[in-house]
């Protein structure tokens, strides 16, 4: 046995050495080639001249515009009507009614804690003067989520029923998620007009994938025994689907809805570029006026809103934990504090209030139920019983409507409640603006910023830019195809080569290499900063908790909130673009490093320590190798997010494919924008597949 494992060890070692040598040779050849060439490598002109993808797209768009615009306009007009209807209702109702509509469901679903939080959120919208934009954002998001859930659920069910359909949908879903929203945001404008309708449709493209995926997996994961027992009772296929599979996969579907809400919120903010109102427009205006504080207030409105909807939709999918009868239930404070007497005293009145509220609600509901029962029993006795029972069970929902009706009635006939009171204003603009401005002139900080800018530009960005653009295109293409062959297989290698040929034939080779270079630099920086943070977090729980909150905030805050500070400190240009990308795409690598390390920390590290390994040794020799799959997934997600960010960085001086998209759109040249957008998607997909295949191999090698 020993000899055999020795042998494997040796062959592994020689394999390792061999692959290092190959990588080294490939790199050296590339270096030599790039120094030989003068100027950036260009695709043969004969090909780019003949392959006029841009013109084809534009012709196609013109044709569609001429002949099918009436269809899209019709769809748009329906969506627009509904949107304006909802918007008018939200904006013209009294603020107390709107607050009640939002807060009471939060209390019902998430208890007192969520109720208090949602009141704070609603107060924050009004107090910062963002009442109207916040509600517009809610309206946009709500409608797109409804449509997403409706269509996504249907598509998800279809996916779960047919393997062929699932295989067809998979690449489509990938593309929907990675394709930069700007690419379809502007063409949507020409087909669906401006404002709410195209915004909602574009949001659907972006936010639908999770619900499709999670409905599909939810239904597919229903245990085989359950299905078997149902079929043995003689359920038909449809019965099986609707009575067994879908109800059982509801938690998974709720999870999907939760993700749809989050993604829809992210895109609705971007939709200000096509004339959709809401907080996105506020943030964008603030940025144009360099008002960091204002932008931050808008960002916080979105952030708080997102957390509220997140907790609300999670509260639905969570089942309530029942406590033993002798323990007092806590409504506000954490249940673990019950050992403190003072917590019990605080909770006492809450408990009492809850009981009274419940009794009142039940009483009111019962009265209404019996009223209805009486009314309907004139016609039909059994339906009356059913209706009565149906109503009396809903002793939270019915009083909720009564309260809403009461407020609306009061507002309409007696009081003019109107919009949010101006006296309750709260502003955090000035302090934020002042903080940023004092940092801008702080000599120490600025010399640090300048040093960083010089380092990133001179040592990372410029060399890599020159290197990647000057390697002949056929060499880069071969290297990528070879990588694809080694990690995935021959089929993928051919696909990779074809995709890269497409990029080259569109005449955007240089731009895509610049994009690749800034993505690589950003990802490298994410690694250097993110991995140590993840390591610290894996050892210190308090640090991890704080860090998680910060990371959540970073991911939900609309990314243009932090563009202005970056600009003031680092100036416009490619370095700022890289730094903004780092801020946006660092969370996954931090999270997954700490996750990977904490997962293995148990037995393995104990064994290693009992053999006398030091902390560093344990980390280096035991934990890291075992955490590699998790690290690679983090790396993979960071790369995808960095690619997605490339579409935003042109706003602050980024170059490459993102700028191509913008320039194409500024001249309403959809073909040019689309070609560049596809370029970003293709690069992202190629790298994604290669890293995922690599993780799979690592996992197998580790026997996980």
């Amino acid at each position, binding site marked *: 046995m020993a000899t055999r494992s020795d042998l494997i060890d040796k062959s592994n070692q020689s394999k390792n050495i061999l692959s290092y040598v190959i990588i080294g040779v490939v790199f050296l050849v590339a270096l030599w080639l790039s120094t030989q060439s003068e100027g950036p490598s260009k695709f043969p002109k004969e090909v780019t001249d003949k392959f006029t993808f841009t013109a084809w797209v534009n012709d196609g768009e013109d044709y569609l515009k001429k002949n099918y615009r009436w269809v899209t306009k019709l769809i748009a007009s329906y969506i627009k009507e509904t949107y304006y209807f909802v918007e008018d209702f939200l904006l013209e109702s009294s603020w107390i009614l709107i607050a009640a509509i939002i807060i009471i469901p939060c209390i019902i679903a998430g208890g007192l804690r969520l109720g208090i939080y949602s009141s704070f959120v609603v107060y924050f919208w009004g107090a910062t003067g963002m009442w109207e934009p916040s509600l517009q954002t809610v309206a946009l998001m709500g409608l797109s989520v409804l449509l997403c859930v409706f269509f996504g659920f249907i598509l998800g069910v279809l996916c779960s029923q047919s393997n062929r359909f699932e295989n067809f949908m998979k690449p489509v879903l990938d593309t929907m998620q990675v394709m930069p929203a700007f690419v379809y945001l502007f063409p949507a404008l020409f087909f669906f007009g*401006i404002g709410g309708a195209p915004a909602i449709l574009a949001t659907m493209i972006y936010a639908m994938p999770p619900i499709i995926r999670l409905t599909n997996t939810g239904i597919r994961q229903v245990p085989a025994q359950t299905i078997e027992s149902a079929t043995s009772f003689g359920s038909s296929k449809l019965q099986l689907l609707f009575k067994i599979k879908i109800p059982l996969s509801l938690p998974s579907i709720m999870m999907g809805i939760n993700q749809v809400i989050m993604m829809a919120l992210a895109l609705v903010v971007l939709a200000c570029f096509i004339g959709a109102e809401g907080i996105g427009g506020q943030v964008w205006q603030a940025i144009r006026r360099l008002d960091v504080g204002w932008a931050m207030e808008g960002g916080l409105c979105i952030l708080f809103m997102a957390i509220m909807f997140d907790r609300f939709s999670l509260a639905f999918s969570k089942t309530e934990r029942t406590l033993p009868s002798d323990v007092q239930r806590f409504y506000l404070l954490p249940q673990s504090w019950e050992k403190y007497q003072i917590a019990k005293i605080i909770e006492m009145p809450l408990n009492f209030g809850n009981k009274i509220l419940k009794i009142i609600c039940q009483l009111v509901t019962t009265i209404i139920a019996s009223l209805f029962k009486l009314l309907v029993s004139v016609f039909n006795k059994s339906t009356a019983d059913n209706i009565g029972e149906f109503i009396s069970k809903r002793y939270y*929902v019915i009083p909720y409507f009564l309260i809403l009706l009461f407020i609306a009635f009061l507002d309409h006939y007696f009081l003019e409640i109107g919009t949010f009171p101006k006296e309750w204003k709260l502003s955090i603009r000035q302090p934020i603006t002042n903080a940023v401005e004092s940092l801008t002139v702080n000599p120490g900080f600025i010399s640090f910023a300048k040093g960083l800018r010089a380092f990133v530009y*001179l040592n990372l960005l410029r060399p890599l830019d020159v290197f990647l653009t000057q390697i002949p295109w056929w060499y880069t293409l071969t290297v990528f195809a070879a990588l694809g062959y080694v990690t995935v297989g021959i089929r993928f290698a051919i696909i990779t080569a074809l995709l890269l040929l497409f990029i080259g034939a569109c005449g955007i080779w240089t731009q895509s290499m610049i994009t690749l270079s800034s993505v690589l630099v950003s990802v490298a920086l994410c690694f250097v900063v993110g991995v140590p943070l993840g390591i610290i977090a894996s050892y210190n729980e308090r640090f991890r908790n704080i860090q998680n909150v910060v990371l959540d905030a970073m991911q939900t805050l609309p990314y243009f909130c932090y563009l202005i500070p970056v600009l003031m400190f680092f100036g*416009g240009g490619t370095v700022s673009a890289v730094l903004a990308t780092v801020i946006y795409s660092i969370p996954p690598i931090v999270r997954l490093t700490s996750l990977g390390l904490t997962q293995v920390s148990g037995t393995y590290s104990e064994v290693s320590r009992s053999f006398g390994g030091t902390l560093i040794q344990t980390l280096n020799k035991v934990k890291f190798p075992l955490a590699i799959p998790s690290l690679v997934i983090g790396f993979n997600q960071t790369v995808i997010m960095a690619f997605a960010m490339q579409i935003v960085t042109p706003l602050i001086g980024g170059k490459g494919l993102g700028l191509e998209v913008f320039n194409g759109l*500024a001249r309403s040249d959809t073909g040019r924008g689309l070609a560049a957008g596809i370029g970003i998607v293709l690069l992202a997909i190629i790298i994604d597949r290669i890293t995922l295949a690599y993780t799979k191999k690592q996992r197998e090698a580790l026997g996980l």
Partner: protein
Amino acid sequence: MKLSKKISALILSVVLLIGSFGHANAAKRLHAAIADWTGGIITCEVAVAILEREMGYKVKQTVFPSGTGLWEAIAAGELDFACESWPSYAEADSVMLNEDLIYEGKVVGSYSGDGSVDLLGTSGIIGLSDYWIPRYAAEEFGIKTWKDLNKHKAKFATIESGKKGRLIGCPVAGWNCHDQKRLDLLGIDFQADELGTEAAAIAEAKAAYMRKEPFMLYLWSPHWFFGEFDMVGVQLPEHKVCDPDTFTEAGNWKDCGTKGWPATGWAKDYTMNYGNPATFASAEHSDAKKFFEKMSLQNIDQAKMLVEVDIKKRDVKEVVNEWLDNNPDKWKSWLP
């Protein structure tokens, strides 16, 4: 199942509520595009405020970035009007307008496009673009015109521009500024950096000014930046167009050296308001059309409001209404 019923009940309730409280409004309605720079916003707010206060309109406003998309949206009738278009920046105007632009009796521009967008009239704002440096830099180095720039180019250099000086250039390629071309033709050894948005350019310039560093910035006036920071123009050569003008897309961008644009500064921009032809041809909106024919906001008034809005951070509507209250003599004559 309990879960889905809860949700459906919630949704149903909202729909029902909406049904019972929808309001209708009978006022005359127009839909305006609000520009994405403060000067344009103020000009439009003045028009909107007068339409609403004096002429019984209800104007829906949508923030919409300027560019070809805006012109197409107006031609398609998605939006009814937009304010303060700068002719030297818009490519669409020569294709879509079909009218002469007249300022104080003089024709300052004539267009012969397809007429899919209607030239409503002057906005009154006359803009001027140039390259600007802060006064402290101009005085310290003794820079009077663009000819002095090369001597001090090292002071304007950044990491990215290397030995050349850096111009924070026209942010968007679609604005047709041709900065690098101009610098090369005039022999100014600077690199023009295109930062993508006005905000990016101004943010960098503001930070540099706060740190008292030398920098050169492309900018147009009236702009709030001049109200807060003391800048001097580098006095580019006076605007000239070579004859025949071949520096156009139709002429395949063949420049005629230093004889004409883009080797010169910009022309004065006589700005205009524009709208959807069908909307303003209808009898219902003939009053609005007459108003736009007469409207003419002066640079000095816009500049005053710019300071209030962008430096004192006041609300645009509040500032515009205050101006209307205090200066009735300036705008009463625009009413039909």
